[in-house]
């Protein structure tokens, strides 16, 4: 994707189109399709950044992911913190996530972004991970929080 062949428009597009794609896919095929796409993106990102087996230092992981996904990257979100817990799980705080930009929901709404972090953390740690969103800005919070934990 490094050569996007868009000399005028460049590599970025509007959230309006992103939301249409996400909503259309989810309406017709369910949320799993969107989460799976995010997971694949997260794994590919880790490969592109050569982060497989990377330092388990959460702040180093945060910096790498924020550089790739944040204001100087693809602008999926701003990665505010990555916290490693004793049981091998991670709590990730993001703001300005693309999934819930301009969205109001009565339940957690991130799917692609959540999937991206599940895929990324699975690839970094080389462990199969499950994830859910415990706080979502689409529900009025100031940030989105993902709980990503290894299977057993």
């Amino acid at each position, binding site marked *: 994707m490094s050569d996007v062949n868009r000399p005028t428009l460049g590599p970025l597009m509007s959230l309006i189109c992103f939301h249409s794609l996400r909503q259309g896919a989810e*309406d*017709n*095929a*369910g*949320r*799993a*399709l969107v*989460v*799976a796409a995010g*997971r*694949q993106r997260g794994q590919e990102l880790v490969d592109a950044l050569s982060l497989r087996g990377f330092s388990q230092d959460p702040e180093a992981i945060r910096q790498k992911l924020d550089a790739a996904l944040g204001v100087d990257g693809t602008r999926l979100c701003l990665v505010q913190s990555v916290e490693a817990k004793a049981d091998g799980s991670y709590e990730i705080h993001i703001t300005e996530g693309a999934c819930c930009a301009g969205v109001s929901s009565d339940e957690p709404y991130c799917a692609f972004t959540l*999937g991206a972090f*599940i895929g990324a953390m699975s690839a970094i740690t080389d462990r*199969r*991970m*499950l*994830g859910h969103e415990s706080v979502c800005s689409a529900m009025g919070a100031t940030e989105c929080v993902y709980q990503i934990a290894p*299977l*057993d």
Partner: protein
Amino acid sequence: MAMSRQDQIAAVLDRLASSAGNDVSGVAAVSMDGIVLVSKMSADVNADRMGAVAATMMGVTRRVVGELKIGATEETIIKADNGLFMVLPAGDQSLLAVNLRQGANLGLVRIEARDAAKAIGLVL
């Protein structure tokens, strides 16, 4: 020492594969988001991809069922000329995916698979 959830699910999948005999070539438990919890698929199957596809199959099926107003989804089956692929809900949190060989006794496997799905649902 108590068995982990993964071990318990693996035991359920092993029982299903064993009771179905030669009819089943692979089984897996998958989260509703398409993440493989335990896979007993053959080595030539990309388990990650299969999990995502199985969960998407269930998502599409649920939308079809909803649009047609024909009740609750019980299972979805794809038949190809060299086998079948079946996905059914396993509780609220997961799915059971079953790969059947060509000529399998579908009726028998469906009964066994429903029991296995129920058992997986109780683990999670």
